[in-house]
């Protein structure tokens, strides 16, 4: 019985023109400090700065209003919540969960925006 013919695949580009260069990935753009890389980074930094500042300003701004409020309307101090004077309730009890919540929200959003950035720049 004759041996089955062995088949070998031979490939070669069909044209003589050079193949189109694969586009650079975002990471390479950033590493090589191209204009595009700078745009990528600026987007990330802006997004993170906006997120950080807004969480910070909303939380601290809300807290920062309290002294003014107590100064304008001293009667508020006599108001009672859960048996505590209003300033005591706000500053001893209510503040801390609010700060934690703000921190948790920030961490979640910051990690998400970093993931999105990674997907964007790692796309070939």
């Amino acid at each position, binding site marked *: 019985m004759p041996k089955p013919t062995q088949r070998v695949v031979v490939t070669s580009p069909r044209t003589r023109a050079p193949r189109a260069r694969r586009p650079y990935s975002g990471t390479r753009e950033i590493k090589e*400090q191209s204009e595009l890389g700078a745009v990528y980074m600026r987007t*990330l930094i802006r997004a993170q700065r906006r997120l950080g500042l807004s969480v910070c300003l909303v939380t601290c701004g809300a807290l920062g209003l309290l002294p003014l409020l107590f100064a304008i309307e001293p009667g508020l*101090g006599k108001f009672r919540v859960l048996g505590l004077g209003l300033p005591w309730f706000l*500053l*001893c009890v209510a503040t801390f969960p609010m700060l934690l919540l703000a921190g*948790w929200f*920030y961490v979640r959003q910051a990690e998400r925006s970093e993931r999105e950035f*990674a997907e964007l720049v790692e796309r070939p």
Partner: protein
Amino acid sequence: MTSGYAVVAVVVVVLGAILVGTYGLRVSRTTSDFYVASRTVSPWWNASAIGGEYLSAASFVGIAGLIFAYGPDMLWFPVGYTAGYLVLLTMVAAPLRRSGAYTLPDFAEARFRSRGVRAVASVLALAIGWLYLLPQLEGAGLTLNTVTGAPDWVGALIVTVVVTANVMSGGMRSITFVQAFQYWFKLTAIAVPIVFLVLVWQVHGAQSLTKPDFPAFRQDTEVSFQRPTVVHAERPLVVKGTGEVDGNRVENAAVLLAEGYHRIGQGSEFVFPKDAAVPHLSTMAHNTNEMWSLPMSSGADFPLYGAYSLIIATFLGTMGLPHVIVRFYTNPNGTAARRTTLIVLGLLSVFYLMPPIYGALGRIYTPELLMTGQTDAVVLVLPTRMIDGIGGELLGALVAGGAFAAFLSTSSGLVVSLAGVLSQDVLRVGGVRGFRVSTVLAGIVPLAMTFVSTGMPVADMVGLAFAVAASSLCPLLMLGIWSSRITTVGAIAGMLAGGLPALTAGLVTMFTDTGDAWYEILLSRPAAWTAPLGFAVMYVVSLLTQRHVPSGVQRTMVKLHAPENLGLDSSGPHSGEERS
């Protein structure tokens, strides 16, 4: 209040710290062990360690003392100490870790590539660290004085010696685990007595904390005056004992204190009768408990300015504290740094629920501290005062031990970071030997300072350290991380413009008596004008000197902000590896 158990507790805490330190001597070998605990620390350990280090004398005894004396305006201290971590989390945590900086001067150099910026940051970090160490040592003196009657300098000396020896022998690896343990110990020490104190208060009939009466003695109370004291009697009262009143010598006799001011001589001992209204220290607001519980009752001039200045100092100052920054390097990456900070936020929130309760109960049970001015002792005295017998003694011992743990841990963290700055930037002696020499220096300077300070409340002193940090290193971090336009000239100008006035104001308040001058509040709470000054000068000068933008700033920004897993950080060797 001299208690055998409390002395035992303090001795156990000190011995424990020394033992763990010696154990650390055996495991730490290389230079990188000393500096960054080889980066093998998990977020929970790290967060507990940050908490342990951060909860200082001010948090453990100082806050309760201030609330006890001045009411709800002082609640901004615990709120600010916690909110500072939110600002740190949202603005600097991850970029700071990614910068690879171990100390603030390292960050300054990594970001600006300039020895000049680094040098200014070093000097400021040292100043802030020493300013912060001073109240720790004063607090230790006060605690030892309260539980044993020893002179103030003994406690300060013990803390300095133990911390210096410990840091010299173990470096940071042992310290990380000591610090982590210390957080949980401190939380126990302040929380367990609270349960019993509140129970006792309930059993006593849950007396209202906000009655429209002046605080009154619950029983005949013997009070000894350790320094000449001017008090104001709200109602006339008769005291018995030996000492000096208004310049007249009294030997074991009864004296009538009429309504008004009285000068009581040093070393006087008088018994104050039950139910009499407690005279206040002359410099304190004279409030009934009802007035005390309302905001803006502290009697300070310009209370609104004071409140905002305190808010700015604590919210922004946290990120500029040298011992806080160090901890971020022990996180493996920026994401872990963020998670660590979030856990810290939780740990601090739990702790800061406690001090206000001590402060409020103190109005009923230890009102004589309002007269002697030792308001910082309220946490230490309450358990033995409210609970009779061995139970109270044991709880008192627990609190005293916790307080001492607070001084030891904060001082350790500060000394480690100051020694880092000293050995790299001031003495320029590398290796383990340089670190050890620097450690000694880092401990001795604040010890010397305790002998000349005027003894203001510890939380106020800590507030000044925060103000300097908020005005100098906070602008450097915030603007340096988020703007690529900041120049070396701008950075230096901004740090000096904010830091120097704040530092001067702090030193003037601490070491001289400014009295009732109208500008007193501008000096004792400087942050509201110095912090904006620092930010504004840094930004404006930078815009004017755009030629001095550091080279390669784009590459630095990539390093600060890009997630590590993308492998973008190819900007040369890591500052960490350079050192090991």
